């Protein structure tokens, strides 16, 4: 789960990380008030779950409250990578002397949380990794011992020769790590971590991604979810306990299991089609899930044909068949449907389907080839 910059900053502030004062606004009038309260130069920053806000014009400096209101007018309502900006963070502008990068992620290879720090912050860290790898230091954290003071000091000295700044950065790393662990994060970063001419070390931008599997046991973190920042169909899918990602093609896919769902999309492509989505109805089946899945898929105007690909292991194929019948009874489909199902209770499922006038096949390749042809306007 993504959370906004202002939310990540609030978590870090509670851990003691020095962060410039700021508040969230949804209207230019609020922006003007906040800018007045803060005094001096402010930065108005779009709060959306998308990278590259700066390049997209979603981050602007303003010298006066009036100017802040003016720039926020442009930012609020702006679209960044398909997401509408509904909130901005108005924050005091920092005097920047140096910019560093400090991040933690879970590394699959070492199976640990790993710090990455670089004195070349502010810009895209992957650019630094590509062009100047010596400017990045990696520090894995042994989960059994936790982050050690000497590890943070090594990283601190990698960022700053000066002992006071190295210590301040080390302290912030310890705080960032605690926030990472206590929030159940899979990523936490401060970019840039700034030093000011006065010698302070402060976090000017922050980002955190939460492991979805942590949300059940962390209601306070789960409450940070901003549904207004999510794509509508993906939000609906999540509420219905489906995993859904919208794509640009015209073949709607409803599959059980992530691996089979991806393999199905690949096969659509293999036979010349374009998948319209990734949709995994998961392991335990119920007619209701199928109804929800069909509703989400059919809401996409670009879908020209729909494919069910169900391999019944735990999933009962008769549940799926019943779901198809229920969903189409009141809302008949306007696009052709191809059904492939096999496995648990397949005989029952096929009987239910044929009773209601649906054809079905047991063969995945045959089904995919047919749905691709149908999406292209081929014979029904």
């Amino acid at each position: 789960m993504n959370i906004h910059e202002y939310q990540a900053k609030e978590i870090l502030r509670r851990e003691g990380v020095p962060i410039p004062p700021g508040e969230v606004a949804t209207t230019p009038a609020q922006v003007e008030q906040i800018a007045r309260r803060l005094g001096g130069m402010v930065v108005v920053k779009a709060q959306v779950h998308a990278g590259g806000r700066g390049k997209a014009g979603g981050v602007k400096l303003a010298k006066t409250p009036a100017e802040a209101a003016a720039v926020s007018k442009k930012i609020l309502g702006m679209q960044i990578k398909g997401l509408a900006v509904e909130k901005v963070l108005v924050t005091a502008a920092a005097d920047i002397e140096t910019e560093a990068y400090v991040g933690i992620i879970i590394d699959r290879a070492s199976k640990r949380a790993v710090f990455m720090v670089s004195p070349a912050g502010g810009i895209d860290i992957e650019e630094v990794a590509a062009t100047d790898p010596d400017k990045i230091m990696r520090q894995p954290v042994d989960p059994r011992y936790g982050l050690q003071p000497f590890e943070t000091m090594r990283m601190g000295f990698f960022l700053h020769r000066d002992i006071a700044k190295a210590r301040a950065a080390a302290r912030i790393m310890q705080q960032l790590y605690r926030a990472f662990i206590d929030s159940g994060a899979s990523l936490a970063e401060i970019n840039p971590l700034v030093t000011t001419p006065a010698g302070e070390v402060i976090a000017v931008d922050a980002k955190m991604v939460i492991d979805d599997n942590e949300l059940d046991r962390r209601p306070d973190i789960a409450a940070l979810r901003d549904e207004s920042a999510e794509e509508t169909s993906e939000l609906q899918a999540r509420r219905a306990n489906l995993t859904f990602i919208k794509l640009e093609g015209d073949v709607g896919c409803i599959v059980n299991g992530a691996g089979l769902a991806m393999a199905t999309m690949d096969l659509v492509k293999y036979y010349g089609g374009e998948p319209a989505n990734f949709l995994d109805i998961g392991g335990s089946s119920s007619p209701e899930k199928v109804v929800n899945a069909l509703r989400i898929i059919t809401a996409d105007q670009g879908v020209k044909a729909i494919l069910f690909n169900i391999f019944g292991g735990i999933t009962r194929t008769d549940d799926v068949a019943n779901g198809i019948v229920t969903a189409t009874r009141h809302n008949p489909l306007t696009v052709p449907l191809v059904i492939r199902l096999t496995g648990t209770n397949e005989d029952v499922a096929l009987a239910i389907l044929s009773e209601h006038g649906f054809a079905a096949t047991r063969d995945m390749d045959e089904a995919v080839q047919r749905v691709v042809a149908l999406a292209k306007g081929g014979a029904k």
Partner: protein
Amino acid sequence: MSIYIDSSSRVLIQGITGRDGSFHARQMREYGTNVVAGVTPGKGGQTFDGEVPIFDTVADAVAQTQANVSVIYVPPPFAADAMMEAAAAGIDLIVCITEGVPVLDMTRVYPYVREHGARLIGPNCPGLITPGESKVGIIPGRICAPGAVGVVSRSGTLTYEVVDQLTRAGIGQSTCVGIGGDPINGTSFIDVLEAFENDPKTKAIAMMGEIGGTDEQEAARFVHDRMKKPVVGFIAGQTAPPGRRMGHAGAIISGSAGTAAEKLEAFEKAGMGVARRPKDFVELLRARL
């Protein structure tokens, strides 16, 4: 022969009285798995289906029944503790079916299990099956048949799809292992490939990977450098949108973006067979048996 489990495996089920645990306990017993014990705290002394003794703790179950394999069906918040309990009690093979285990829990479970000398498969996996001998987990038994192909996969239903096609084509399996798709899991492709290489019964291997991470690339290197047996690989997710999960920091750390193209290229470089479609496994494996 086979890998990890066979008819001599003595299987314990953690969470045997839960909804999933009891359902699959029955499925396993029907298949012929030697289920010797169950664990549900507070139900020690009772029996499951009148035949399988239930214990309060894994330690008790191991002491009384000499169970050496444990399969875990407990809710995600308790799964880490269940895996560690099994490891501490001396279980050799721990299979965690539970989906939704927090990854930070796994950063601690992984070294713990290793230090206790146990092998962990999963979490978030369908388990494994040695057709005709023992099934531990949730892979449907009827789609499998005994034979000479070792199957290893990161996903569930995709495995079923491939195994089903193999069985229908008359190609049986030595053991099928679902290692699970979570960022941190107990057993890697390489672990399973090495076991298959050393298993006399296995003649060829089917391997189903996914986008993300670098496990498949490392597996390909292992196949090239250390294996004599033929391996056929497949990658799911060639059309998946990039960067939806881990973002770019993950890619930097692992030194790779984990794309399907990259993985398929690694397979080809390693001299592996490459299945473009699930059905391609049938002919590619037939030619290698």
